[in-house]
């Protein structure tokens, strides 16, 4: 079992990354996890609970995927409510550092009134726990038994989007570390919008905006782009972050060169709108 746990930890994607190898990779992972599951002490025994509840070395901890399987195939199947609560508590405890940090990060740049932050954090964390419990107790969601961390990322994404929309704060979030978004970006976006009315100049690339965007850290760009519609995001990311030409992006996304430029134009205009509320912060050069 120790060897299997290390294998899960050390697993890295293969060099060949076509569909077939991806399936193989996950099939192999499922097989390793199944071996660990089968080697567990008898359900409910002292050794069983000791193994589940004991802090382990990084390479020796029971994979969370196996815990999910135990929850579903043992505790749920036996309608053992006490065990269900106990296993879910172990999972939440193991995720505690990560989840608490995620909650702080999600609210880090939100404009909140004094005293609101704690209340919002508690709400968001409860929403996340609810989503987590519902997923863990739903044995139709098999991916949690295959790649727990990735399933968790999608669950947190879902909770984050839902929470921000519900609170009406989706557009009010500041970009990450707002002071790093330089004034030149705002000015360039301003020019970009002014040019929008002029068909002759519509296709001219906004070099200053481009430079400004490149100066922003990847997480900041991602936080900004995350608020754009998906079809606009890919164009901006590929051009500003991966240095592709508009022609290459067009070919890649199977759209015309002109559509790429139009999407870029729209994206820049929308980013300017998002940043508009932050103008004072940016011009003052102070972080939020």
């Amino acid at each position, binding site marked *: 079992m120790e060897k299997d746990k290390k294998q899960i930890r050390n697993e890295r994607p293969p060099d060949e990354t076509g569909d077939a190898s991806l399936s193989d990779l996950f099939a192999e992972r499922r097989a390793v996890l199944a071996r660990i599951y089968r080697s567990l002490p008898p359900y409910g025994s002292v050794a069983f609970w000791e193994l589940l*509840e004991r*802090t382990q070395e990084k390479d020796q*901890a029971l994979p969370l995927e196996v815990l999910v399987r135990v929850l579903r195939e043992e505790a749920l199947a036996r309608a053992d409510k006490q065990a269900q609560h106990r296993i879910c508590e172990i999972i939440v405890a193991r995720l505690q550092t990560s989840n608490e940090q995620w909650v702080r990060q999600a609210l880090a740049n939100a404009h909140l009134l004094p005293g609101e932050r704690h209340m919002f954090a*508690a709400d968001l964390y409860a929403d996340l726990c609810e989503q987590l*419990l519902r997923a863990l107790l739903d044995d139709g969601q098999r991916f949690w038994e295959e790649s727990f961390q990735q399933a968790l990322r999608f669950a947190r*994404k879902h909770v984050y989007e839902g929470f921000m929309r519900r609170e009406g704060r989706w557009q009010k979030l500041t970009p990450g570390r707002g002071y790093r978004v330089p004034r030149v970006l705002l000015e360039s976006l301003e020019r970009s919008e002014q040019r929008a009315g002029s068909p002759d100049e519509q296709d001219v690339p906004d070099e200053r905006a481009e430079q400004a965007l490149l100066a922003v850290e990847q997480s900041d760009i*991602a936080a900004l782009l995350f608020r754009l519609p*998906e079809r606009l995001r890919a164009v901006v990311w*590929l051009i500003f972050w991966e240095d592709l030409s508009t022609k290459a992006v067009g070919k890649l996304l199977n759209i015309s060169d002109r559509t790429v430029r139009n999407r870029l134009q729209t994206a820049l205009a929308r980013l300017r709108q998002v940043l508009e509320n932050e103008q004072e912060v940016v011009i003052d050069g102070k972080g939020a």
Partner: protein
Amino acid sequence: MEKVREEEIMRITAQFVAEQEAGQRPRLEDYARRYPQYVDEITDFVTYYYAMEAGLPTDTASVPSLSAGSRAALELAWERIDTPFASSTLTLATLARRKHYSLARLASILNLSVDLVEQLARRQLDPATLPGELLQRLARALSQSLGVVRQALGLPEMPSTPFLAEERAAYHTQHQISFREAILASSQLSDAQRNYWQDVLERKRQ
């Protein structure tokens, strides 16, 4: 089919994360080339990942005692999951309490004034005149299905379901007014909020 697609996207993006964590600097370009059918979904995840997840700890080997915050969140989550709704106790106020929302907080989320939310909670508004957008906002705010929200407001669970006379009688009070009348009469609604909901009602009419 949708589930298969979702799982496929999760596997593909898991690969992206694994490469990133291994220091291989994966490129969206490569993934767009390999999986053109999922380019929007992959981009959606990648931007979220870099914005929110990339720096988070993934070491989950230790089993610490639950912090007060984690304990409270977990208990509230169990409470939401474990307690089934009895239709007789299903009201807007009970749904708000389960989310630990005051009516003022709910009003702020819904872009309404407190007096209007109080009228809603007391079933003083004719539920048939409530705009769909308000019902959807309530469902999102209270993390409930539209059906549950409709029931809490005294509407049939499904819009197409005929409303039995005795059911309507149970919810109908003598002093119910329409949503439109309520927003015009409200003393607490801001001008911006009033205009917003009037626009919503106009769109509904058109």
